[in-house]
Structures are given as C-alpha cells and as structure tokens.
C-alpha cells in the first residue's frame, strides 16, 4: 500500500515535470521542470531499493546535466519566452501528437495483451516487464553499490572500458570541431567533391 502511494505521487511528479518541459514558454522554466521529473524518477529508484542509482540520478541528471542545459540556454541567450503557438514545420504538432498517441497505445496494448493467456507458456505481461513476477534477480543482502561495482568490473568490464574510451574520444573530437584558429569564415563551397 505504502509503495503504491509513493509510486502514484512520484509518477505524478515525473509526468508533471515532463509535461512542463514541453509546455513552458520560457526555456529556463522547461529546464527546471526537467529537474522535477528527474527527482520523481529518483524517488522511484529509492522505492525499488536502488539507493545508489537514486543518488546518481539526482547528482548527475538533476545536478550536472540540467546545469549544463541552463549553461547552454544562457550562452545562446534564448532565455526569453518563445511563441509556441507557431509551428516550425507545418503539421508538425499534429503528426507528433498522433504518432505519440499511436506508439503509446501500441506499447500499452503490447504489454497488456502479453499477460497470461491461460496456457503454460509463461507470463510476458506487465508483471514480467516490471519485474514483479520474480524474473528479475532480487537484490541480496549486499548493498546495491557493491553489486553494481561487481557487475561493472566483472561481467561488463569490456563495455565499461569501451565507454571510458568513448568519452575521451568524444572530448577530443568536440574540441577539434569547436576550436577556432583565428577569424575564419565559413566557405560554402570548398574545393573537394561537393559540387552544388
């Protein structure tokens, strides 16, 4: 019962924050309501006893990433109200809404129609997806940080190292792309293979 109450409240915060992101006219407000959404997710993690993930969610997403968003917004100087009644592309809103609703309906139908259908083939419905049917390995007495470290440095060591390289190389590339040697202008048609 307690879990349900926590879930309903935090789910409302998650959804409310997400709606705020797309409905607020001021980009700064949108970024701030993204924090609300991240906090809701963090609470959900706590209720699943994934304390470390909850912490990371707040520190990394709620802290670092949204601050980065705000930096970009301030740097580009778009911290004013946008007229969101005008569509950048004609029909964009309508098609986004229609496809969003369709995908949502498809997912919901997919998950709920996959529940137990009477045979022994197994349950692939909401219980299985959310892990409450017991298919997901439950946490042992070990703290989740220990388990996470265990997983990262044993089974997923290769992916972990590859991610490290990925971040390094992305930094190198980003520096090259934004570096400006003196006052160089854009050349629209550099000699090369492009011709138009």
């Amino acid at each position, binding site marked *: 019962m307690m879990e349900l109450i926590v879930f309903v409240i935090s789910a409302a915060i998650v959804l409310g924050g997400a709606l705020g992101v797309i409905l607020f006219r001021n980009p700064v407000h949108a970024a701030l309501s993204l924090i609300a959404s991240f906090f809701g997710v963090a609470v959900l993690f706590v209720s699943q006893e994934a304390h470390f993930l909850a912490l990371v969610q707040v520190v990394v997403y709620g802290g670092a990433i949204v601050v980065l968003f705000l930096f970009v917004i301030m740097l580009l100087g778009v911290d004013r109200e946008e007229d969101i009644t005008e569509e950048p592309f004609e029909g964009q809103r309508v098609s986004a809404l229609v496809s969003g609703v369709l995908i949502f309906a*498809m*997912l919901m*139908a*997919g*998950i709920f*129609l*996959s529940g137990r259908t009477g045979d022994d*083939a*197994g349950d*692939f*419905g909401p219980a*299985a*997806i*959310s*892990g409450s049917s017991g*298919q*997901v*390995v439950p946490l042992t007495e070990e703290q989740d940080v*220990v388990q996470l470290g*265990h997983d990262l*440095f*044993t*089974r*997923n*060591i*290769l*992916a972990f190292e*590859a*991610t490290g*390289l*990925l971040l390094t*190389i*992305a930094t*190198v*590339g*980003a520096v*090259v*792309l934004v*570096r400006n040697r003196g006052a*160089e*202008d*854009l*050349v*629209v*048609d*550099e*000699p*090369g*293979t*492009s*011709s*138009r």
Partner: protein
Amino acid sequence: MSGTFVTLVAAEIERPSIDWHAIAPELILLGGGALVTVIDLIWLERVRKLIPTLTSLVFLVALIPVITLWADGSGLPRGLWIIDENVPATGVWEGAFVVDNYSLVLKGLFLLSAYVIVLLSTNYMSEGDYYDSEYYQLIAASVLGMLVMSSSRDLISIFVALELVSIPAYLMAAWRKRDLKSNEAGLKYMLMGVFASAILLYGMSLLYGIAGSTLLSDIAAAIDIGESRPVITLGIVFTIIGFGFKVSAVPFHTWAPDTYEGAPTPLTAFLAVASKAAGFVALINVVIVALPTQANVVEPFIWVLAAITMTVGNLIALRQTNLVRMLAYSGVAQAGYMLAPLAVYDGISDRATSAVVTYLVIYAAMNLGAFAVVIIAARKTRSAELSSYGGMFNYAPGLTLAMTIFLFSLAGIPPVGGWWAKFEVFRVLTEGNRTSGIALAVIAAVNSVIAAFYYLNIAKQMWFLPSPDGDNSRIAIPPALLAAVGLTVAATIVSGVLPGVVSDMTDFVNVAAGQ
C-alpha cells in the same frame, strides 16, 4: 589496514584469469591509438606526416593476433575469460564476449578496411586544412568499436560498441568544418543516429525486461515459448528499426545521401563500408543468437525492409548525377541485398550468416575501390559530377580500367567479385524452396538489372564520352592512393575468380552457439 582490504576484495571477486590472446586485437588497437595520441601531443607538427603511417601500422599489427587466433583454431571459441572449473561463479562469466571464426573474419575485414581507409585519407587530410592527427585517432577508436562489436553477444556491449563506432563517425562527418555541407552532414548524421539509438534502446529494454538478462543466449532461452507475444514483437521490431538506421535501410536511410556527400570523401568510404558492416554485425548477432525462435516475427519484417531497401535505393540512384550521391544510394540498395538472407534465416542461420558476411567482405573491397577512384579523380577535376568523368580513358586508362572492374563487380557481372556475393545470396534465398525466399530472389534479380544500368552508365561515361573541358592532362596518383586501388582491385578480382578463398573463410558452423 591494507591487509583487510585485500582479503575483502579477494572474498568479493573471484575473477578467472583473462584470456589475453583472445582480446589481443582490441588491446593492440587501444594501445596503438593511445600511442598515436601521445606522440601527437608531444611532438605536434614535427610528426604530423608520420601519424597516418603509424595508424596504418597499428591496424596491421592488430591483424597479427587475429591471424594467430585463426591459425590456432583448436581453442575456438574463446571468451574474455579463461574459464576454470574450480571457480564457482563460472556461469556469470560466459558468453558476453565470444571469439570464434565468425568474429575473427569480421575483425580481419574491419582492420583491413581501416587500413585502406587510412591510405585513402592520407593525401586528402594532409593537403586540406584539417586537424588530421585527431582524425586518425577517431578512426582508430571507431574501428575498436567494430572489433568489440564482432565479439559481442550481450545487449550492453553491443550498444556500447555501436556507440563507439558511431560517435567518432558523427564527429568526422563534420570534419570539413568550414564547409556548410559538411556541417549539415555531421549534424544530420548525429541527430538521426541519436534518434535511432533511442529507438534501439527502447527495443532492447523490452527484451531485457522479458528475459531479465542482457545476454543474447539468455534472451533466446527466455522467449523460446513456441509462439509470439505482442510485447516480444514490439521489442524485436524496435531493435531492428534501430539497426535499420545504422545500415541505412529504407525507410531509415534519409540521412545517408546528404551525409555521404557532405562528409570528407575518405570518411564517406568509411561510413559506406566499415560502419555499415558494423551495423550488419550487430543485426546478425541479435537475430541469429537471440531470436532463432522468433523467425515468424523477424522474417516478414526484414523481408519487407530488404525488398523496399533494394528497390528504392536503386530507383533513386538511377536519377543521380553526382557520383558520390549515386554511390550512397547504390550502397543503400546493396544493404537491401545484404538484408535478404536474414529474411529466410529460419533453420539455416549458419548459411544465412555466411552469405551476409561473404557479401560484406566482397562489398568492402569493391566499394572502397570505387571510392578510391572517386578520390583520385577529384584531385584533378575537383568535382564528383558524373559528367566530369568523361574522357577519363584518354588521360587515365589504368584508373578507368580499375573503376570498370569495381563497377562490374558492384553490378554483379562475372568474373569479378560481386557476382559471387550475389550468387551466395540467391542460393540462400532459394534454399528450401520457400515462396517468400523465391519472391525476394526475383525482386533482387530485377534490381540487379536496374543497378547494372547506372553502374555501366558510369563506365560508358569514362570510356566513350569526351572530357567536358577538353583537359586531357594526366592525373598524378600519390603512392598511398595507388596502393589502395591496387589492393582493392586485387581483392575484387581474386574473390571473383577464386570464390573459394572467401567462402572457405566464411563457412561458419553454429554461429548461434558461439563457434
């Protein structure tokens, strides 16, 4: 204090020893890439000219353990760990990283393609005003992602490898940063790629939710229920759509032509060959290893993708007047042929895998060759327009002959390579006499005829039409580019005349079980 710490760690992690030989190619590439970076940082401009040579050496050195692993086939398949029966937690360690004949062939393909790409890039990068050392570091990182991809049998490592392949490529596509078209290329590629990754992750998370494990073999076991369920179908469809973007299958190909045209041409060759092959490897791993029991969902979906990919790609390629764009659309169409065997993989997954990998190997040789000729020609004509290839026979007969070989191969005309690749695909499609396979074979045959028209049109331009500006001065071909053309011509001819060379290597047994 430290003693307690050590015992604590020892109690927590009983790690089997690492099989260094099995991951030697990846480690050499990682170390080599780091070495290139450090050398570049210390000596800056003084070693700038050496960086491409050094990078290509790293690729060749990384090829050595691939060959020794292949020669020492007795211990295959191997994993990241040397499994010791005395260690109780064995089950946890197995299966995420598999080194078998299939992954070794692909690693060889990726390393050799990367070597040729460096040859193609050397002059292009040093003559333009680019940051070239970083370019080679990014290439090395991307190729490392491809090597990891060949061995990945786990959703997490597949995803990380795919990002490691793609993110350097997004950056390199925008490398001509003072050219608006290149900016567009990079941005478009990144936005579409990130979008595809999001869809892919959604599909993967559904599969993980069902199986409770990211290991492909565990997923296969969890969904082996003799029927399909909507949520499994959703997971599969989202995952395949994600890979569809990476291999530029229609209707997820929209980024490809603009990106190919705007990116530096050597990088275009990289995207069209190596990066696309990596996408196919990911698709094969997931389909063959994780979804052998879901053929009734996967096959029709891939069937439709393959059919529209080859048809739309060829029809649009027909109308192109820019050779790079034409090669981009022809690459889309070729992806359709490569998808085709996966539309009939049920029960013959090894044969289907062999056919796709054979196609990838031969396609790499002929397409890299075609791009090499485009790069050489652009040094003189400064253009990739089809008309600028007129009269090339008069001033560059050798180059014209090489390009003709590549074009014949792309069109699938014997005796050069491409026919064998197509033949393998047709053989798999008609195996088992299934209506769907034969229908797809018919569509592929019709498409081959359409494709032959525009490929041979390029050849006609080069052999028979006059030079547009009457400039018949010869082209000076730098040694690196000459080597690239030489290597790809040799590979294209050998794979066509002696198809056994390729098919002996790509004759896989039991890919799904990791051998």
